[in-house]
């Protein structure tokens, strides 16, 4: 009962906050609501016994990505932003498409069949801690994707610098 209450609080808050993110007029407010949203999602991950994922959710999303967003939002002309209409003219069509997707996903959920259970039970993970279990798997079985991820980050760093730098007068 307590678990369901806990989940209910988190689910309700996450949905309300994501509605706030999408519908607020002022982009700075959107970013702030998104910060709160990411903290709630991190709480949900803790509830699912994924401590490491919750930690990187807070560190990477709330700490790094949202700060980047905030920097760019502060370059906008907020006066113009607040005076203008926030949605495009045909927004009911967008709502219809998104609602159709939601209905179809929820309809399909009934036919879900659970696959075989893996070996990482809650007790097994708890006995060697989540971070250690994840790290062991990451550096053995998933070493190659891990290296590719580092390459992607390198490309992103170079690309961001090249795109954002001003043209030098030569």
């Amino acid at each position, binding site marked *: 009962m307590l678990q369901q209450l806990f*989940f209910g609080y988190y689910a309700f808050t*996450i*949905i309300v906050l*994501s509605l706030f*993110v*999408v*519908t607020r007029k002022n*982009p700075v407010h959107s970013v702030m609501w*998104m910060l709160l*949203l990411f903290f709630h*999602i991190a709480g*949900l*991950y803790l509830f*699912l*016994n*994924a401590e490491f*994922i919750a930690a990187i*959710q807070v560190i*990477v*999303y709330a700490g790094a*990505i949202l700060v*980047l*967003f905030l*920097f*760019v*939002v502060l370059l*906008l*002309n907020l006066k113009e*932003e607040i005076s*203008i*209409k*926030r*949605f*495009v003219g045909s*927004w009911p*069509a*967008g*709502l219809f*498409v*998104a609602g159709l997707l*939601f209905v179809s996903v929820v309809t399909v959920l009934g036919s*879900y069949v*659970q696959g075989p259970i*893996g*070996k*990482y*039970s*809650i007790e097994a*993970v708890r006995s060697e801690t*989540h971070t250690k279990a*994840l790290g062991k*798997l*990451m550096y053995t079985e998933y070493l190659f994707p891990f290296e590719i*991820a580092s390459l992607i980050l390198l490309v*992103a760093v170079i*690309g*961001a*610098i090249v*795109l*954002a730098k001003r043209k030098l007068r030569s």
Partner: protein
Amino acid sequence: MMVPLNWYLILSAAVFMIGMFGFLTRKNVIIMFMSVELMLNAVNISLVAFSHYLQDMRGHILVFFIITVTAAEAAIGLAIILALLRKKQTAHVDEMNEMKG
């Protein structure tokens, strides 16, 4: 008493739907980009929930990689938006018509 897996999946679908609605209907490029982040987070919720209920670690690994790629994507996307703001002085998609789309 466990929370059923379906609840997590419905929550994930709802957040994904809200993100998709925002992406399709907002004028501001930055809010559209934030909607994309919202959709990625929705998928992450469902992956972690599956991982927990199937007692497997692969979902967590996938979420780790998704967060890495999202960070890269945010850096590149915001650099593009920055270049766009510098060139056009506006962040509204309905005023961008260079591609004649």
